[in-house]
């Protein structure tokens, strides 16, 4: 067992790495601080064929999650236009952060409340939500699990959930997959008969009750609820020394 202290952010990063297990040679495109660290951890350990972005216009081989210099190892050029070729071709697994998500994985980050003509709160817009979710595997990252984010009904469906996908012609929905939702408290998936969101594991030290309380709808609860795995010594070393030497993941996810 490790003699290093294990923080909640380490557990989250490992859970985010695990979403890419088995993906093989695709573009892992986790957007955000801890997702980017998790994706790089997956590639540095059990999923070496993944390609990853520099958050700009190239895909790079560097294990470090940020702060690359001119010596970064560029594998290919991937400007925004190429990203659409890649994502519509399906060789991508994206991680986005919802403002709202519902029991079937419908996701909103466009607007809250009001009307189409006059939203109460204008957020980003549809961005790439519709295209990502209908074209390839999608997962979500929620750095602060709360009933404001996990809601019975989202105000605007940007990312397509399982009930919406099921209502489509099967051929149209054949590339749709919402794999997992990772939060600061737990891991959720849709491995139920009707694809209703299920509590897949709670992070060490988190009670099932705490997750239920912070979720604005009824979760499917397995009996017993597993506990999210801890990082290995090697994973901790990689994160601390190579991938995230500045410890940026701890700024996003604090210890309880």
């Amino acid at each position: 067992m490790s003699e290093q202290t294990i923080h909640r952010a380490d557990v989250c990063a490992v859970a985010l790495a695990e979403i890419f297990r088995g993906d093989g040679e695709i573009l892992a495109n986790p957007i955000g601080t801890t997702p980017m660290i998790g994706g790089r951890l997956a590639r540095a350990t059990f999923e070496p064929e993944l390609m990853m972005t520099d958050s700009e216009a190239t895909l790079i081989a560097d294990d470090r999650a940020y702060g690359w210099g001119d010596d970064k190892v560029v594998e290919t050029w991937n400007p925004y236009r190429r990203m659409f070729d890649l994502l519509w071709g399906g060789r991508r697994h994206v991680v986005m952060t919802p403002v709202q998500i519902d029991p079937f994985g419908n996701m909103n980050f466009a607007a809250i409340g009001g009307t189409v003509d006059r939203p109460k709160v204008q957020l980003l817009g549809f961005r790439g939500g519709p295209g990502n979710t209908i074209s390839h595997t999608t997962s979500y990252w929620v750095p602060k699990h709360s009933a404001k984010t996990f809601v019975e009904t989202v105000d605007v469906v940007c990312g397509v959930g399982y009930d919406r996908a099921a209502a489509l012609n099967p051929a149209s929905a054949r590339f749709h997959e919402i794999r997992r939702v990772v939060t600061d408290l737990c891991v959720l998936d849709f491995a139920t008969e009707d694809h209703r969101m299920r509590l897949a594991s709670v992070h060490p030290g988190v009670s099932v009750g705490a997750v239920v309380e912070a979720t604005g709808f009824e979760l499917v609860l397995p009996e017993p609820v597993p506990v999210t795995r801890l990082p290995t010594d090697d994973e901790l070393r990689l994160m601390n020394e190579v991938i995230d030497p500045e410890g940026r993941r701890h700024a996003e996810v604090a210890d309880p």
Partner: protein
Amino acid sequence: MADKRCSPDEAVTRLKSGMTIGIGGWGARRKPMSLIRALLRTDIDDLTIASFGGPDVGMLCAAGKVAKVVFAFVSLDAIPLEPHFRAARQSGTVAAEEYDEGQFLLALQAAAWRVPFLPTRVGLGSDVMAHNPRLGTVTSPFPSPDGSAAEELVAVPALELDAALVHYNVGDARGNAAYTGPDPYFDDLMLEAASTGGRIVSVENVVPTAELRSTAGCEHRLRVNRLMVDAVVEAPNGAHPTSCDPDYGTDEAAVAAYAATAKSPDAWQAYRDAWLTLPDEAAYQSAVQAKGAVAR
């Protein structure tokens, strides 16, 4: 050979109230801000603005120039949500035509190729279909691979532009131009989707055609040719306060100062008086230099 060079103020005489105008760049990156500033000096309004949006959209909204924004997102990058755009939407003063960003690409491509729509799976099952009534559906004339019913796809209608404003790193007087940064964005598509007469390219630097390829660094970067361009504006630092890599990065302090003015009408008016109602682009650039000198 025609010399298409003109000043920013001369270039925007090509624009009229009520037009649909595409603006190049992405978020706070390589925005044709010298042309936006020139547009802000006119009395043109009632515009429909199509943009991978940044401060271009926010400034035009705040100045009351915009009837409708065609967008997939509007962001200042480091400041994720554009406050002036949000204020306009939340007060109901600016209408929206919303797209997924890939649909936006297809809408421009359809216009550029002069087809009524392009098919895609993007949008199926999402609320973008309800938010944007221009989006339609079309049934594939071909069987599905698994033998099930033919696929229904989204038909993204052509987004025909009356004008397009874009900024590049280098160009010539004829209207050929190149980007030397990491990403072409969608600027060339904006130009191809726009009507003849309204296609305006500003560049950091105008060079003789014989020096264009060597200045650009290689021919792959010569994204824009003169068939796509009606007017050329030499505008050094013309994307300021947005970035124009590799020539300069985003002036984050200037973007933050602009964003902060969304808090009150007075703050916006003061910003407008200080930066946007100067007599011409040269005066703006002098003010930027003076401010930089003070900061140093």
